[in-house]
């Protein structure tokens, strides 16, 4: 007999932790679903696409909770509970799955907005219901495994998810001989055809359903076991608050007496050099591989270098998020310095950290045969600064309750564009964005950088001023442990 004590509280806790985001995104998704039949053409796509974006954020919420638990040591406290680790893991995984459910509704809204009027009932049913359901299932299974892997192998940073999912299959395929790849593709096609044929009969469909359910259950059980082994092996290390400490740089920070602006910038750079030493090294190796590596690896390196180039300046945003989670950001808030000066110090650090990435991107362009140009370098640099700075400022300011307001603002802007320019306005915007860098050179990115700086500095300062280090995660943990201990 399996003792399921603690399963429901663990599941409920996972849901409760995302409840604000879930409420806002769920509400926005329902609104999008209701709006879709009323609106037409591009206008109908906008709310559905925005709802999909919001729902995608929900997928990351359980990952954020796990990261918080690892950083603050809550996993160790959980281990003291009278609950089996596998039950605890299963409860968390189920709670995380339920958190992502608005994704299906959002994709349904999107499918409703893009389906063609003349399609048959079967095709319409497939597009509107089967595709969202399938996507939801895939998202849930992927979430189980990402959570389980992050629990077991202490991957504090989640940077590996996108390159891992995006590039690993590509790398594996490029390593196989072409003959083998073709054969593999042919076998996959055969399998899909066989599945479709089997699904044509009611008996076959039922059999496939049972097979899918068994696979799903096996996947859930496997992920829960891996997650549980992560809980079992976890050791809280107060010295590693979210950032593994590498060997400290020999060159220490010393007082310069040149004012707080440079002091803040130097502090951020000092932490970043330790935080991203490995990434800098990988960036250099990636460039060498992209230049002289074997063809199979060259493409992968060329795809991965831009990711690393973006990650380096965005590391400042990571430092801020970590400070916000651990409460150390209050130290910045209480400096006898205006919040705008602190913000500018961060912006300067980002601008400097974007340089290696911009140079790497420029070298990558040269490898593709484009000639070196200072304008292109300035353009890459400005885009990197803009992206990293907006991530830092908006990330510091953001609260889940702002999400709907932000989505509404984007909706109004896009809807106004559609009303003014007709249904093709979305395509026109995409075309302008694609061609504008060539049309205006570095002008657009530099303008974007200046605008983001002008808007981001007061936003950052306001967010820093209102920051209150909460003891919420600890209080929630305490309440949860009391509840589980009593039940």
């Amino acid at each position, binding site marked *: 007999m399996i003792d399921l004590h603690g399963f429901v509280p663990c599941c409920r806790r996972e849901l409760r932790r995302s409840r604000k985001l879930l409420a806002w995104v769920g509400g926005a998704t329902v609104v999008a679903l209701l709006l879709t039949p009323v609106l037409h053409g591009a206008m109908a796509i906008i709310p559905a696409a925005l709802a999909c974006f919001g729902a995608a954020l929900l997928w990351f919420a359980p990952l954020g909770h796990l990261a918080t638990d690892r950083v603050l040591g809550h996993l160790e406290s959980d281990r003291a509970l009278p609950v089996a680790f596998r039950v605890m893991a299963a409860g968390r995984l189920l709670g995380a799955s339920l958190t992502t459910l608005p994704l299906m509704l959002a994709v349904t809204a999107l499918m409703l907005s893009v389906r063609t009027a003349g399609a048959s009932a079967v095709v319409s049913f497939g597009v509107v219901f089967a595709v969202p359901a399938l996507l939801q299932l895939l998202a849930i299974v992927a979430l189980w495994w990402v959570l389980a892997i992050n629990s077991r192998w202490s991957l504090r940073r989640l940077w590996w998810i996108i390159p891992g999912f995006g590039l690993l299959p590509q790398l594996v395929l490029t390593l196989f001989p072409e003959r083998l790849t073709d054969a593999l593709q042919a076998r996959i096609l055969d399998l899909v055809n066989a599945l479709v044929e089997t699904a044509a009969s009611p008996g076959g469909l039922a059999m496939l359903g049972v097979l899918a359910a068994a696979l799903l259950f096996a996947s859930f059980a496997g992920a829960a076991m891996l997650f549980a082994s992560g809980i079992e092996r976890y050791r809280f290390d107060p010295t590693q608050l979210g*950032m593994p400490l590498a060997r400290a740089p020999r060159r220490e920070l010393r*007082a310069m007496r040149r004012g707080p602006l440079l002091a803040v910038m130097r502090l951020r750079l*000092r932490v970043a050099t330790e935080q991203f030493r490995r990434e800098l090294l990988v960036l250099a190796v990636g460039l060498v591989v992209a230049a002289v590596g074997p063809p199979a690896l060259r493409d992968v390196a060329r795809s991965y270098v831009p990711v690393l180039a973006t990650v380096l300046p965005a590391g400042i945003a990571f*430092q801020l998020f970590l400070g916000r989670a651990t409460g150390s950001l209050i130290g910045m808030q209480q400096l*006898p310095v*205006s919040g705008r000066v602190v913000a500018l110090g961060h912006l300067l650090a980002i601008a400097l950290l974007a340089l290696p990435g911009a140079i790497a991107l420029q070298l990558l362009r040269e490898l593709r045969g484009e000639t070196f140009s200072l304008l292109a370098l300035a353009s890459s640099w400005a885009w990197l600064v803009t992206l990293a700075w907006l991530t830092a400022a908006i990330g510091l300011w953001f609260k889940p309750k702002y999400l709907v307001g932000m989505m509404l603002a984007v909706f109004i802007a896009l809807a106004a564009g559609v009303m003014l320019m007709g249904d093709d306005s979305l395509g026109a915007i995409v075309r302008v964005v694609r061609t504008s860098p060539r049309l205006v050179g570095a002008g657009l990115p530099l303008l974007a950088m200046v605008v983001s700086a002008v808007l981001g500095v007061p936003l950052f300062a306001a967010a820093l001023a*209102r920051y209150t280090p909460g003891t919420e995660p600890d209080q929630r943990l305490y309440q949860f442990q009391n509840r589980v201990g009593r039940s």
Partner: protein
Amino acid sequence: MPNDTPIVTVQDLTVRYPGFTLGPLSLTITGGETVALLGANAAGKTTLLRAITGRLRTREGRVEVVGRDPLKAPPMWRARVGFASEKPQVDAALRVREWYAFLADCYPTWDSAYQRELTERLHLDDSERIGTLSRGSAVKAAYIGAESYRPELLVLDEPTNGLDPVVRAELLALLRSCFAAAPARALLFSSHLLDDVEALCDRALLLRDGRLIDEIAGPVLTEARASGSLTALVADALRGPA
């Protein structure tokens, strides 16, 4: 010796949380005073200290610290108030002396010689990383970070909680010597430990369930110290009517 210059003036301060309300409470702390805030867990000590230092954004009532409302004061006002809790509030990767170097660049009144003196007196290894400091060293580091610019009001949140007897004695001795001859400065600290009150303070404010219920000062405090009845006095007050 205490003088008449008010350093902290609090009038009808109220902070509301779901399930807990601090206040309304009023108090005044003048220059030269060392004041202890005593109370059981969840009595509201930390909330009161956070309200006084401007770390709490939502509150009612009037709070004035060195002449300004913490929520409306210009940034430079923060150089007149020091706050230290159980650990330095900065990135864990920094060495302690790197953090001090950073603070020296930010605080115009930072006294590096004084900081070195405090570091030596407390036997703190400032080459250690913030993240690897033991509890006692973290408390010392945080205290030095808040004291080295000689703020007019120094606020310490349970400075001796969890410290071993040697470190505790070192810290109390240092606090005594720093504030003994500083008539323009005031020290406000929260504690569970009556030994701290005995060793350090001119006045003890007793907090229970978010309310200031009593105050022990002057002859009463002196007599209680001398007769060894301070513990019973405070315990009776905090326990409340039977």
